[in-house]
């Protein structure tokens, strides 16, 4: 009875009839899909080429050393100076805060969902967690601005609640769904034999989770963390609204700061095509691209390893 209603069977049924109906156009569709696949690669290469073409010329004006380690960013002054150190450090602080929160909460949540919670709870909670990922970042920024920043300010007795910490907390909420979802999948991929063996040896449930399930799923969890980090680094609107946007190199996460994404967003409208500021912003974009690419590559590698580990 339940077999007949399962979605897989329904899908097969639809597929059959669709196939019959669309056969004349199949070649066309195939070609179109192939083009779409190629298009993604072409666009990716195009973006890289554009970033390089627009960003690299800044190094004629500013030496790479001055660009990466300079602490002064005055793009509209005469003469302009472009040092991205404050943005770079700000990005690191905010990502650290976001990762620390999303990892500690996310893995605990994933362990609960995968190992402890009854199926009914899991099936209700997981979709709800995933809805959290769908919140537009501007809404998260608004919540951070109106609710979280006054809280952070009074709780820590800061000069202003617009700080890297506030931004980090908001970002952790945004990367949490990815961390939970991917780690939960990784934990569930650990074969049940492992757990049964642990129980047979007299391990408690906690010991099983801590010594068997989590180590078994470690590469998948690492990938989840990396994906969360990637999300936090690239997020723009939220940090633009709540991080405060000060140009000093931040010494602690409780200071107002401007991460790289916010620096690009707040400057690009002002930049004349081909001007120095425009080139400098593209160079920041290039740095950002390299960082997220590295993070995603690591995540991909680790995830691949996890898959191979349990492939049978």
């Amino acid at each position: 009875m339940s077999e007949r209603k399962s979605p897989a069977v329904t899908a097969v049924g639809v597929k059959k009839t669709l196939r019959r109906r669309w056969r004349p156009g199949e070649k066309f569709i195939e070609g179109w899909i192939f083009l779409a696949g190629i298009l993604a690669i072409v666009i990716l290469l195009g973006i890289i080429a554009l970033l390089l073409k627009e960003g690299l010329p800044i190094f004629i004006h500013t030496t790479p050393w001055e660009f990466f380690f300079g602490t002064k960013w005055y793009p509209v002054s005469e003469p302009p100076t472009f040092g991205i150190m404050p943005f770079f450090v700000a990005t690191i602080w905010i990502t650290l805060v976001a990762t620390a929160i999303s990892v500690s909460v996310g893995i605990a949540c994933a362990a609960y969902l995968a190992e402890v919670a009854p199926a009914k709870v899991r099936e209700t909670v997981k979709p709800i967690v995933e809805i959290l990922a769908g919140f537009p970042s501007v809404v998260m920024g608004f919540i951070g601005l109106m609710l979280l920043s006054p809280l952070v300010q009074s709780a820590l007795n800061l000069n202003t609640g617009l700080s890297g910490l506030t931004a980090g907390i908001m970002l952790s909420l945004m990367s949490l769904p990815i961390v939970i979802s991917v780690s939960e999948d990784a934990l569930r991929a650990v074969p049940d034999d492992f757990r049964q063996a642990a129980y047979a040896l007299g391990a408690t449930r906690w010991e099983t989770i801590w010594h068997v399930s989590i180590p078994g799923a470690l590469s998948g969890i690492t990938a989840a963390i990396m994906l969360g980090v990637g999300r936090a680094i690239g997020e723009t609107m939220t940090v633009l609204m709540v991080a405060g946007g000060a140009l000093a190199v931040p010494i602690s996460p409780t200071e107002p700061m401007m991460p790289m994404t916010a620096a690009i967003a707040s400057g690009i409208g002002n930049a004349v095509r081909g001007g120095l500021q425009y080139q400098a912003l593209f160079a920041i974009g290039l740095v950002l691209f390299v960082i997220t690419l590295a993070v995603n590559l690591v995540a991909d590698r680790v995830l691949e390893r996890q898959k191979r580990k349990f492939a049978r």
Partner: protein
Amino acid sequence: MIKLIKKMKKGWLALALVAVLFVAAAGCSNQGTTADDEFSGSFNIIGSNTVTPLTSVWAENFMKMHTEVNIAVSGPGSGAGIAALINGTTDICQASRTIKQQEVDQAKANGVEPYEIQVASDALSVVVNPANPVSELTITQLSAIYINQITNWKEVGGNDAPIVALSRDTNSGTHVFFKEHVVQMAGLPSADESLEYGPKVLLLPSTEEGVSEVARNPNAIFYPGLGYVTEEVKPLAIKQTADSEGVLPSVATALDGTYPIARPLLYYTNGEPTGTIKSFIDYCLSPEGQERVTEVGYVPLG
């Protein structure tokens, strides 16, 4: 059940197709009306966040009078507006600062001839939280606050509390105007063009955000245009020098020239405006248009 779903899917597809056709048709007809008939067509106005409320009111009224006209207004900042004018992506640039020589050169290199029209004036109010006992500051004190030389309110006669200096980001004409006329003290004997905003100044993406932060934070200070001042913040009286009298920002004090931080609000077009754009600007400058300026909270042309 499955059949029903399929039917629905088909319906959606048809709907999407119709929508696409509709949009395409609308696009075509829109282009069609951009003829040189004086009171039709569409154009856009990009630029200052400060001028946006005023431009929006003018655009709305103008579109009400001439239903064939379509005006799109957006306010990312004066710098962004001027960049858009130079890049040819806007018809009118609204700005709260004058165009720089460097930008004129860039425009000319791109074949754009910036044409300046002053449409109103604005007084830049300096606001603090109502709980802050400070009620007046000199330009020199303001400059010291914004270069992070003065960092505590007690140094300017307030409580023993740190100053949180808020500013707009570099997209904003207000950022540049305030830098030239307050931070660098243009026109004062102590003027120094090498001064810059201090690194601890918070650069915010919008004027509204600065005003709401001042309303919340007793230590904050910010400089919105007159039109953005709400009941929740307290404007400061500004003294040109330590000896002169403090003047509160208002339409009257900006008009008679006693308020020290006032500035022109400008439109830039590529060459002298013609056709619909000219009739729109004529409306802005007409007595009726200037009446709206006072309503929105800015200073009409004298």
